[in-house]
């Protein structure tokens, strides 16, 4: 009798395990898309079809969001900006339910992930400041070049008479773009002679014209075109322009490089081959 009781218990357990394997995943009715003809189609069932379309970036940014959650980052700090973005989309794109983004909540998560990523990039740039300074040797200066001396001189005179550097260049120069933060060592387009000027000159003096008839590029090639550089060297102390400098460095960090750094600080384990294959093929090296 006792043997039969044990046997029946085993039989019962086998039956229970079959029920658990078959139906537990649809216990939440919100996960069922539809049911008919003896089948339930759940979000889990259709996830793999959606995965086959090429939108891995949505999953990637969702992972960033999950890292932020894991870090207990203050995501509510982005609420105000997210609200205004949502309003913008509603007003200018006529979106109401954000269905194309998987609903407003999903869209908000995506936006929060983007803001979190931007903050991380800033933090990465700040952490690398010493290395950047070593490679760049940045100076804060206004620089424009002219092809003829007379135009350079006219611009110089205008500045002396009270005009802004930008206005003087705009009215007389061919190069109307005024560069402010200049990297010396890592700049590949700046002629060696101009770099040399920045290294030796004193900051805070009046603008000067540096005429160069023969320039040498970073590869050592000599260029015979005569150019006249109008230069206003404002500061050589990075503390005077640190925020602007870091914001340039932040912008230069690629999203995927920053995401890779974020992921390196977290333990991400794939349990699903298809999801892993999709992500690894879309983002080579990201999950190594």
């Amino acid at each position, binding site marked *: 009798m006792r043997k039969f009781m044990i046997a029946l218990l085993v039989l019962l357990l086998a039956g229970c395990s079959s029920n658990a394997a078959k139906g537990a995943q649809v*216990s939440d009715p919100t996960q069922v898309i539809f049911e008919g003809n003896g089948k339930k189609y759940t979000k889990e069932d259709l996830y793999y079809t959606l995965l086959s379309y090429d939108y891995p970036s949505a999953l990637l940014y969702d992972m960033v969001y999950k890292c932020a959650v894991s870090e207990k980052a203050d995501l509510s700090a982005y609420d105000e900006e997210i609200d205004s973005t949502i309003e913008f989309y509603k007003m200018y794109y006529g979106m109401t339910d954000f269905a194309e983004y998987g609903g407003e909540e999903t869209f908000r998560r995506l936006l929060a992930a983007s803001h979190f990523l931007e903050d991380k990039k800033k933090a990465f740039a700040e952490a690398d400041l010493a290395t950047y300074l070593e490679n760049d040797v940045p100076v804060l200066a206004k620089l424009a070049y002219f092809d003829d001396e007379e135009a350079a001189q006219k611009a110089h005179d205008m500045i002396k008479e009270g005009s802004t550097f930008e206005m003087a260049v705009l009215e007389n120069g061919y190069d109307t773009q005024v560069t402010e933060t200049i990297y010396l060592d890592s700049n590949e387009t700046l002629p060696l002679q101009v770099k040399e000027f920045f290294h030796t000159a004193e900051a805070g003096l009046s603008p000067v014209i540096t005429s160069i008839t023969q320039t040498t590029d970073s590869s050592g090639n000599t260029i015979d075109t005569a150019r006249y550089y109008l230069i206003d060297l404002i500061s050589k102390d990075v503390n005077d322009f640190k925020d602007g400098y870091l914001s340039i460095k932040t912008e230069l960090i690629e999203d995927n490089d920053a995401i890779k750094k974020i992921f390196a600080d977290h*333990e991400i384990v794939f349990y699903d081959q298809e999801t892993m294959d999709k992500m690894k093929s879309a983002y080579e090296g990201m999950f190594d």
Partner: protein
Amino acid sequence: METKELLKKYGFVMIIGLALLIFVGVYIADSAGKRETYIDTKQVDGRYVLYSVDGQDYFADDLYDTLYQGAGSTTEVKALGHNVIDKAVKATSDMEQYAASYAAYLLQYYDEPTILNYLRQEGYHSLDDLQDMYLYSLKQGEFISDYYTSHYDEYVKDVAETEDPRIISHILVKLADVEETTDEEGNTIHIAHPTEEESKKIEEILKELETREFSDVAAQYSDDGSAANGGKLGLVTKTNASKYVKEFADTSLALKPGEMSEVITTTYGYHIILAEEATTEDLLADSDFLQQIDTAHPEAFTTALKEAADAQGVKIYSEDLLAALTPSTTESEAN
């Protein structure tokens, strides 16, 4: 040994064996029904974990909404289509044969990753499903064709009135020398310079047509591949006529059903064209015409699907899916 004694002696072993069989059976059935590719599969409360971040598990249903932006409602409509159409349309042996040969053709000419990705986008998982996928597309064609037949006035009539369809057959006598020139209005025209033998052939055909069926004469005399089919080319409409050379298209559309043309000359030679009434069956067997109906009535498929789903008692919970199956007010008004 009697049964009672056998049971007494081996009953315990049999029950344990039976339990193990059920367990193994359930395991195999479950693995077969589920995905086969999991790496270190992890389940929590019966839900499959896709990945974890710092020990926190994330599931497929969590990520469904995240991926929804790509092809969300389309995917849901497709899944509903499979469920409803598979029941509504029974596969014929012809369909099965055709699906099998088409699957074999695809496997021969396309690489496996391309086919596999296509299969996945259609809701299938392995190359073994290729035949099923194509069989389903045939069923889907049958499903919509049946729907159009039973809703002719709503979906087919207006397109048929606009497109003026007819079934066209022809007899071709190829000519070695056809001169291309322009008429007074600058239109390209073709002038025949037949040999004696070619002239004799067209005369003979015209004489035969006085007493014999067009299809018989076409089968005997036409130099075109359509001869094997009694000269029948199929459905010609205002839209698809342009796939034929101009003189042929113009003449085909100018004929009334039942009328036969005089001999016309195109770059290929002499043609005699016969126009016949196109039946509803002819219209709905023509993929171009079906495409024209789809263009004119983009909501037709989802409307048909919703009606069939309702008839089958399918319960739809997703609001997005319901919205995708409901024609928008603008479309309804427009139609």
